[in-house]
């Protein structure tokens, strides 16, 4: 450990730690002014904003390329530092159009923040003397570039060079004609392209999906976890007035670091998508008709009872469902009500290529949670064999019919099918009862990612008026089958399962910011990965 003094106060940090990071801690979380430094990228040291005074060193030094040494005395707030930063900021603004009112970055622009702070409202440069560059070019399916707003921090270039290694972007020409862009003939279409929008400290790179849809200062944000695959990238859902506007990665060094894929980022579109199940449906005279909840429950109860003395309950869970829902389904409908759990997924489905970065082969978010609860994969023929005229099949958010033709046929062998889910699909279309639930953005829950890390996500927006929380629907189903759940509130589910099941003992003390690893095996894996 090294003892160092920052702004007059003594601190202990690891010798060799990045000084920028040390200063952030010493400044109570307030980062030094900066554009180019990013903890997830190699240091560039070009914006020159994070200047600090180090005693014994005549010139000011950039903190991002300095390391903590024992005995160091650092000043981040001296007049000399402040003056210098103000002057460098002036250079940054020199060829910048300062067109904030028509720029979509307003509210989350590092340049704007700094010049408001330093009060640099006017310039000695005539507009006609500014260097003109390309405006508003679409450089990829998801990203727009305004080169005049660029401060040439090179984050996007470093990202595409070192993180995705796709090398689409570069800085071309030199001096004050330097211009960021994609190389001729290329476009920025890698699977992580929108990360450059997050990285861009100014309004040069903006999301084609998000731009001009909402001023960012009108957005609220909630912590969430991407449901797109088994990696479970941490993210924030940003919304306003009940509408989601964008999803952005949330830093979790143990999972996704600072990044997420475009696919996951754009999943929110399904939340308000045309295929939302917005009302309960019951099949009457061969047609699915929208009905009220009371109608659905009584029809379902009648149908259940009509299946005769030998009636049975067959349950299909889902790797898309939350840990709480899966526990509820199993503990209430299987263990208490005697239903048979077939499993949580059709064997071999919803797998794609592992891209070696964040996109996992398993495109479901909670396979590991389901397996730890005792769910297993099953085949279409097992689905068929479990059927019969006396069987009621309850499917939780799992498009069996859409995933496999044989499974679709197998559904026909059941006396009745009830589907709980939030999107219309091939399975909901053949079901007899459709119970509209909520999407990941409309409820709280826990997913266990591929490394066995349990991660919480939270509700951002309300679901459709008639949709219900899935765990409540499961509880209602319990009532139909004659069993009242032991849990009254959603959080009871998590406390109960962590108390009752050894596999989830680690969750008894709550789930940490970076999630909680469920078993030592994965913890070891993590160390290797790190």
């Amino acid at each position: 450990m090294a003892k160092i003094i920052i702004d007059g106060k003594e601190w202990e940090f690891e010798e060799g730690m990045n000084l920028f990071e040390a200063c952030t801690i010493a400044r109570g979380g307030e980062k030094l002014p900066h554009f180019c430094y990013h903890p997830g990228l190699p240091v560039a040291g070009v914006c020159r904003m994070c200047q600090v005074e180090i005693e014994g060193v005549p010139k000011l030094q950039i903190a991002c390329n300095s390391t903590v040494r024992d005995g160091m005395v650092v000043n981040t707030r001296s007049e000399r530092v402040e003056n210098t930063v103000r002057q460098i900021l002036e250079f940054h603004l020199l060829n910048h159009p300062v067109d904030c009112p028509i720029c979509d970055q307003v509210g989350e622009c590092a340049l704007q923040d700094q010049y408001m702070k330093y009060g640099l409202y006017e310039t000695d440069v005539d507009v006609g003397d500014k260097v003109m560059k390309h405006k508003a070019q679409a450089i990829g399916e998801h990203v727009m570039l305004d080169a005049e707003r660029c401060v040439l921090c090179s984050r996007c270039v470093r990202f595409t060079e070192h993180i995705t290694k796709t090398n689409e972007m570069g800085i071309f020409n030199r001096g004050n004609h330097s211009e960021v862009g994609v190389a001729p003939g290329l476009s920025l279409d890698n699977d992580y392209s929108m990360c450059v929008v997050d990285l861009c400290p100014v309004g040069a790179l903006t999301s084609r999906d998000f731009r001009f849809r909402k001023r960012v200062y009108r957005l609220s944000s909630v912590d969430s976890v991407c449901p797109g695959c088994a990696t479970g990238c941490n993210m924030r859902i940003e919304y306003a007035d009940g509408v989601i506007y964008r999803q952005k990665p949330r830093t979790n060094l143990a999972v996704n670091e600072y990044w997420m894929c475009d696919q996951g980022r754009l999943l929110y579109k399904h939340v308000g998508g045309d295929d939302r199940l917005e009302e309960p449906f019951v099949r009457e005279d061969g047609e699915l008709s929208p009905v009220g909840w009371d109608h659905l429950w009584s029809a379902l109860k009648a149908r259940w009872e009509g299946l005769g003395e030998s009636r049975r309950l067959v349950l299909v869970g889902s790797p898309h469902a939350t840990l709480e829902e899966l526990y509820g389904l199993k503990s209430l409908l299987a263990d208490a009500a005697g239903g048979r759990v077939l499993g949580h997924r059709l064997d071999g489905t919803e797998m794609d290529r592992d891209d070696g970065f964040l996109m996992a082969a398993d495109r479901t978010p909670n396979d590991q949670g389901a397996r730890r609860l005792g769910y297993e994969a099953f085949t279409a023929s097992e689905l068929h064999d479990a059927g019969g005229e006396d069987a009621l099949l309850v499917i939780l958010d799992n498009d069996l019919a859409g995933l496999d033709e044989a499974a679709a046929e197998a559904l026909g062998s059941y006396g009745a099918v009830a589907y709980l889910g939030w999107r219309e699909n091939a399975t909901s279309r053949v079901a007899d009862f459709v119970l509209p639930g909520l999407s990941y953005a409309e409820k709280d829950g826990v997913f266990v990612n591929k490394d066995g890390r349990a991660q919480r996500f939270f509700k951002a927006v309300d679901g459709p008026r008639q949709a219900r929380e899935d765990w409540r629907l499961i509880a209602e189903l319990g009532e139909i089958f004659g069993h009242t759940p032991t849990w009254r509130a959603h959080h009871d589910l998590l406390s109960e399962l962590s108390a009752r099941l050894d596999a989830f003992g680690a969750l008894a003390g709550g789930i940490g910011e970076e999630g909680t690893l469920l078993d030592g095996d994965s913890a070891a894996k993590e160390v290797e990965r790190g």
Partner: protein
Amino acid sequence: MSDFPKILLDNVGVENSHTLQVYRSRGGYKSAEKTLKTMKPEEVVGVVKDSGLRGRGGAGFPTGVKWGFVPQNSGKPVYLLVNADESEPGTFKDRDILDHDPHKMIEGIIIASYAVNCHDAFIYIRGEYGWIVKRVQKAVDEAYEAGLLGKDILGTGFDLEVIVHQGAGAYICGEETGLINSLEGKKGQPRIKPPFPAVVGFLDSPTVVNNVETIASLPWILEHGADAYRGIGTEKSPGTKLFSLSGPVKRPGVYELPLGTPLRELIFGEEYGQGMLPGIELKACIPGGSSVPVLTAEETMAAKLDYESLAEMGTMLGSGGCIVIGDDASMPEVLKVLLQFYHHESCGQCTPCREGTGWLDTILERMLAGKGRPGDLDLIERVCQNMAGLTICVLSDAAVMPTRSFIAKFRDEFAALLPKDEEPEEFVPIARSAEDRS
């Protein structure tokens, strides 16, 4: 100057001096042979340290000390990069060695490589010197054929590969880390330090970058010893140095002089510049390449050409590119030429330099176009202040030094470009606080 041995230009002027045959007939490669056969690498480093040889590219850092920074047994190869990217305005000295005595440089490369345990050397020649690239390549080929390069040099078991590399037009590649990046196939943008190239340089390996003239001084030093070299020049600036003399003098050219020689000797000496062209009086002189502060005529007459004396006068020896300015020249116009150069050559990565060089150029252009504004000179000074010492490399400072000194020493000429009806006012910061505005 009276008596001193020619160390660098002894072969220049000899017919076919660029050929191996002529170079050898004049004793060439004997020093390298003796070094490789009779000395240990650390002894070579010792001699060079003792000789007091300082880098001739412009910074003047002691060569032996620089070599001493190279870690041995780092498990990585050591590279020697010879900086022949001569592009400091007013400097055309390395060209004489490259063109007329390339074997002297090659011999120096063998010695330096041996000293730092390098087996792969590159000669990075500026792109514009196309014919010199060919000339040097030919000399390298000759050396390979004669067993002076390649495997088992002169039967000593020492191996050395040399690649001649052609730049492609970028002043900044003369900065050693810019050169390293360029050689790695990147834009020639200087690297942040630390790490320093001696430890993490070309391909992340220990790397020594030495100027052509520095390298070409080695054969003589190793042949005659450190003391002999110290016997020339001054105590702190030993040896001889090449000076490039340009501007309106009778005999411009490249001259070898002991360090410490009076600047007026270079400009006015019978054997050297022979004074100003008829009808032109000395007005100013930039003694060390365009990036160093200018001297007035009076200062020029008093200056001595060594690192310390020039530093005392507030300027630098730099590359030894001595640019003489006559009384027919307009100082603002000359400065404009330089600022346009730095503007054009800024690599663009550090904001103060990228924006500052362009801004200075724009302000002076405006002044020369008769559109100067009161306060412009103060604005220039403020921009200079904000550019100096805040960037990865010194190109920013290189633009600032001539700018400040031109304006300080020839202020009247600049002030004459500003509107006459208004008194130049004290600079008032335009930036206002948020409160003022609301």
